[in-house]
């Protein structure tokens, strides 16, 4: 693979520009146009002089493979278009840091919520499709399918909502507030306590 310096493109063979969303805060260990900012929203060209590369990343850069090129596993590889892990330390486990990346006007919703909404729309599809001027996005079907497979897990969705909304502290509180769960009281006791602990932790962090 060619190595580049300066403004030449270091695109992987398929001509894909990588806009790697990475949570590193390296402050200048990359060269070229890369300015080390963690959240630039434009596509970035990641460029290296491949002889001088040794990114002092905090371990969170991951190697982005060009799709045809997986032979070497990306560690210490010599392709100019890959971002290299620093070989000296094992990378810390990947954490979900969605809050940083979510745009201001967006909120996460559970798959089950999405399923309810999308199914509601599908129910009205018949009526909607009679009107030729109304268009539905192409990915709607796929999305509905995906929501069905994942969202169907929680059939007792409203109980989950109640528990999450109320934020109970003990398992007994939960059974008092959601009487439908009383039937499975013995089974649920232990896991409920664990779940409530986790939720309590999240409450404090919020």
């Amino acid at each position, binding site marked *: 693979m060619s190595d580049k310096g300066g403004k030449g493109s270091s695109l992987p063979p398929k001509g*894909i*520009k*990588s*806009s*790697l*969303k*990475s*949570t590193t805060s390296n402050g200048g260990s990359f060269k070229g146009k890369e300015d080390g900012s963690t959240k630039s*929203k434009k*596509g970035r060209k990641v460029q290296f002089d491949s002889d001088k590369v040794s990114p002092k990343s905090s371990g969170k850069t*991951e190697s*982005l*493979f060009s*799709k045809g090129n*997986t*032979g070497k*596993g*990306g560690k210490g590889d010599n392709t100019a278009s890959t971002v290299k892990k620093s070989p000296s330390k094992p990378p810390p*486990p*990947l*954490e*979900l*840091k*969605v809050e940083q*990346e*979510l*745009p201001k*006007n*967006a*909120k*996460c*919703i*559970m*798959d089950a*919520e*999405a399923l309810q*909404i*999308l199914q509601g*729309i599908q129910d009205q599809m018949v009526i909607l499709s009679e009107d030729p*001027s*109304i*268009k*539905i*996005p*192409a*990915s*709607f079907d*796929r*999305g509905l*399918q*995906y*929501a069905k*497979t*994942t969202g169907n897990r929680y059939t007792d969705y409203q109980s989950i909502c109640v528990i999450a909304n109320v934020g109970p502290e003990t398992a007994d509180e939960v059974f008092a507030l959601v009487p439908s769960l009383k039937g499975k009281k013995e089974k649920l006791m232990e896991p409920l306590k664990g779940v409530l602990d986790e939720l309590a932790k999240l409450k404090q962090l919020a």
Partner: protein
Amino acid sequence: MFLNVQLPWNVIIPAENLDAKGLMLQRSIIIRLLDEFASKKATKELGYYFALTTLDSIGEGKVRQHTGDILFPVVFHGITFNLFRGEIIEGVVHKVLKHGVFLRCGPMEHIYLSSTKMPDYRYVPGENPVFLNEKLSKIGKDVVVRVIVLATMWLEVEREFRALVSLEGDFLGPVSSF
């Protein structure tokens, strides 16, 4: 994951569609909005656009000088789908290659799981190639696999996302549907 987004958009109604009957105006705004929503398909920040849920408000229309169109600022809620780094998703395998597999998750077709990110799995070639590990668990076509997202990529030209995922982590791997 799914997102519920609130967006302010400007909807332009061309002069021809403006009718003497004022009631049709709201309908044509909604139709134009749906049209634009559908044609947008996806954006980098919010992901794939799925559906419009509610129309919150339609602002006052402004007449544009030269064309005679009217511009309405609208605010609405919609459902989008996006993948985030570090997220755990379940994808369905639709292509098995020597160095990895391609997964499909919702609207995204190009989710790549490299063989180097599948610890202990080796490639078994054949008519229906699969990846097999010592405990004989299989990653083959139409298998649901739980993976963690390492990186995502936005392609401006095709207006779609690609993602790179891995199995390195606890409780990741093929799942049995139940």
